[in-house]
């Protein structure tokens, strides 16, 4: 209160955090990293312990898992290919959550993106060179995912439907749209299953490292992550998204177009997920099934693990990709471990992370309230708080 008193500040935090957008000091960054590593180690140990108790050779499984995830060129590339759709859906969730918009609909936006790209590379091919067709398919998938997400935002703005709710429900709409399309106009001629025809090889995303799964979509996804990091962290647009997310009342006061920015957040988020769907079709599966994975939902976990930061999300996605690839490798070996084990590990990690971050948040809010007691000591505010 007394302006002549030395300002109460945390000295360790200032010198290093020399960027405006640092919401938390480096201390918190390291805490978070330590927490993530700790949660991963804890979950790994827990799962291994359970495996050992159930009579599996735990250390052997761990060894094979690591080899399977990154033991050689081929396995590493497979891990990256697995990480690719997760990275894009993770970015989708991260972009939205960071700005306070709870887009749970990456799954639906991902599916719609995949559907559009399949349609544009099998049934409705526009005349042109293959790279043009692929680019067009990916762009269309982006727009489709973005519009699908925007629908939820529009519903919230004009009809008061919470985005959390509408995005979850739109996931189901998207799922059945996909099934209907795969039973109807997009169904392969030689089957009765809900399945699209396979893409011609000229429309497959090129493999960049021969004899591996490392396709063009992987560097593309990482490029998107870097681009988002720049846009969100260093442009006015990103600044407005950040303020809109952190405190929309301030954003309104200083004249930011809050509603437009909220639409933009959803569109951008949906774009990422839609692109993820297209990349998965063009780069990996080369056709589409009625059951096309749960990348959208897993992306939420990836985003949380990556702390909603594009680069963090990239790291988290690679980790999840390695988990998946490793678990398939273990499954294929003679150790008779079910593939679902990877999902168990992921679940335990997320739970451990949530517990740890809830603990951190409680600590943080306690610190803040102490801070408040020290600084904002007006009776009025105290009354309001109580």
């Amino acid at each position, binding site marked *: 209160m007394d302006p*002549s008193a030395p*300002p*109460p500040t945390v000295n360790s935090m200032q010198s290093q955090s020399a960027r405006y957008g*640092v919401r938390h000091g480096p201390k918190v960054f390291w805490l978070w990293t330590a927490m993530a590593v700790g949660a991963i180690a804890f979950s790994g140990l827990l799962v291994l312990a359970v495996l050992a108790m159930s009579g599996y050779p735990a250390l052997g499984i761990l060894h094979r898992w690591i080899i399977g995830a990154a033991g050689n060129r081929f396995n590493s590339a497979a891990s990256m290919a697995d990480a690719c759709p997760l990275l894009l859906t993770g970015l989708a969730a991260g972009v939205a959550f960071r700005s306070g918009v709870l887009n749970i609909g990456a799954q639906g936006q991902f599916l719609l993106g995949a559907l559009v790209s399949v349609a544009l590379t099998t049934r409705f091919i526009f005349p042109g060179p293959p790279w043009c067709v692929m680019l067009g398919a990916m762009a269309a998938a982006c727009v489709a995912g973005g519009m699908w997400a925007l629908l939820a935002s529009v519903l919230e703005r004009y009809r008061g439907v919470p985005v959390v709710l509408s995005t979850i429900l739109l996931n189901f709409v998207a799922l059945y749209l996909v099934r209907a399309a795969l039973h109807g106009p997009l169904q392969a001629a030689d089957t009765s299953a809900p399945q699209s025809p396979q893409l011609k090889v000229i429309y497959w995303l090129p493999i960049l490292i021969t004899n591996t799964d490392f396709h063009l979509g992987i560097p593309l996804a990482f490029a998107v992550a870097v681009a988002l990091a720049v846009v969100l962290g260093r*442009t006015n647009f990103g*600044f407005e998204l950040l303020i809109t997310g952190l*405190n929309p009342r301030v954003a309104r006061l200083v004249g930011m177009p809050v509603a437009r920015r909220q639409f933009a957040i959803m569109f951008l988020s949906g774009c990422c997920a839609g692109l993820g769907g297209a990349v998965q079709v063009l780069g990996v599966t080369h056709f589409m099934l009625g059951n096309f994975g749960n990348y959208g939902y897993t992306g939420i976990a990836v985003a949380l693990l990556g702390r909603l930061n594009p680069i963090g999300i990239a790291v988290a996605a690679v980790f999840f990709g390695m988990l998946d690839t490793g678990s398939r490798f273990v499954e294929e070996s003679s150790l008779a471990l079910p593939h679902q084990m990877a999902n168990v590990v992921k679940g335990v990690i997320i739970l451990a992370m949530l517990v740890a971050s809830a603990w951190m948040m409680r600590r943080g809010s306690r610190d803040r309230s102490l801070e408040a007691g020290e600084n904002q000591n*007006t009776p009025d505010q105290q009354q309001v708080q109580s």
Partner: protein
Amino acid sequence: MLSIENISKAFGGVQALNNVSLAVAPGSVQGILGENGAGKTTLMNILFGLIRPDRGQIRLNGQSVVVRSPRVAQQLGIGMVHQHFKLAPALSVTDNLALAVGRNFVLLHRASFRDRIAALARSLHWAVDPDSVVGQLNVGQQQRVEIIKALLGGGKILILDEPTAVLTPQEVDELIPAVRSLARAGITVIFISHKLSEVNRMCDRIAVLRRGELVFAGPMGELSAEEITHRMLGAPSALSSLGASSASPGLVRLHLSRVCCPLPGTRKYKPLLDNIELSVRAGEIVGIAGVEGNGQTTLIDAILGSLPISSGVITLDGSDLSHLVNFRRARKFACIPEDRQGQGLVLSLSLTANLMLRSYRNPEFMRLGLRHVTAWRSRAAMLVRSFDIRCASVEVPIQFLSGGNQQKALIARELYGNPPVILAINPTRGLDIGATAFVLQQLTAARQRGAAVLLIHSDLDELLAISDRVMVMYAGRLLPTNWPAVDRAAIGRMMMGITPQAA
């Protein structure tokens, strides 16, 4: 018999209550009067166990009691009705009350419970139907339900925290006999208000708090209305160094003509803004005095466009603002909002980011489409120097700054670059004397530079010290005064709703 003895409570460095003693007789209605921040609510929160006092004790029928929590308060027979009701609108009155008294795993006999409520309502001569759905009751009736809730556990002492703030005049008229019948039933009612007229009609005894001290306690009628107002507001303090300007104001910048604004979603309640006529000219400070909650924040929301008005015109420099999109409209005003931390600053971001929230769009802060980091930092450093913001570095998250420095940062951001129109609401709230003087100086300096300033302030002394014209806001209406031709007490009376003589 409830007696409060030598209660003191400090929040940080501010003494919210200083050695307050008060005895309340059973079956009486005790009014507690005071300005915002006088300590009324703190005192009641101590009685209800929400806040622990630093010193002093509470005696109930001669016995010293320690009210550790609201639950303990209820066991002691102390009930409190807050301004904002805690009722489930979709449930019936009976079910709401059952929720309040019901314990886990203990079955409640619904029919007899319902009869108990009906009996209690009858004994108070209140028309409360236990079967009606709470959401369909009007606010006054919902308040009755809250009161019954507070009394159901056998409460003998009832605290009403500004109960009339949410009511229409008609509902206030109905509340008064209801409270009187409570007192006849032997219940002690403590009635908090800053509206003298209501206290006058309702209470047996009054106590007046001013800046945490009890300045009067005695029977109603012992003091005249003027004297009570005088004690509430205290003697005018010397803020003379600031002074009103002698410069003649220029053209009308901001003009509001017959602006009305209903309470959202309904026409039944009193309007939030009632036929507002207001103009602010360049080079003058127009002060709006008034007790909080009489429509001041609504007025700002209406000007900024965040709340739609139902009729009237708001113009800036002669052009109608309703044609502008909200965000473009907000850019036309510098605004020092009431809620500094909630509406003015992004607490988790650095001082630099907070200082740049107005000017980041300016091309000089961009390079190749990206943020010009050094330009940002040097602008922030410049503002820190010229507004004397005490901080270790411009990169510190602003939550680590003291309240006064946060407010300086906010003012630096809003007032830098000579904005033509400034809106300020309670700009010195929670600040100490030095910071307060700084803020007031900044506003007068802005006026000297030709800005049109609309100052809404609940501190009358500061308001009168720097305003060129003063208006009073009461119950959504804006009443002009002839300040400085009328005296301070007359303005104080208008704030309390007495004799709104357009002097």
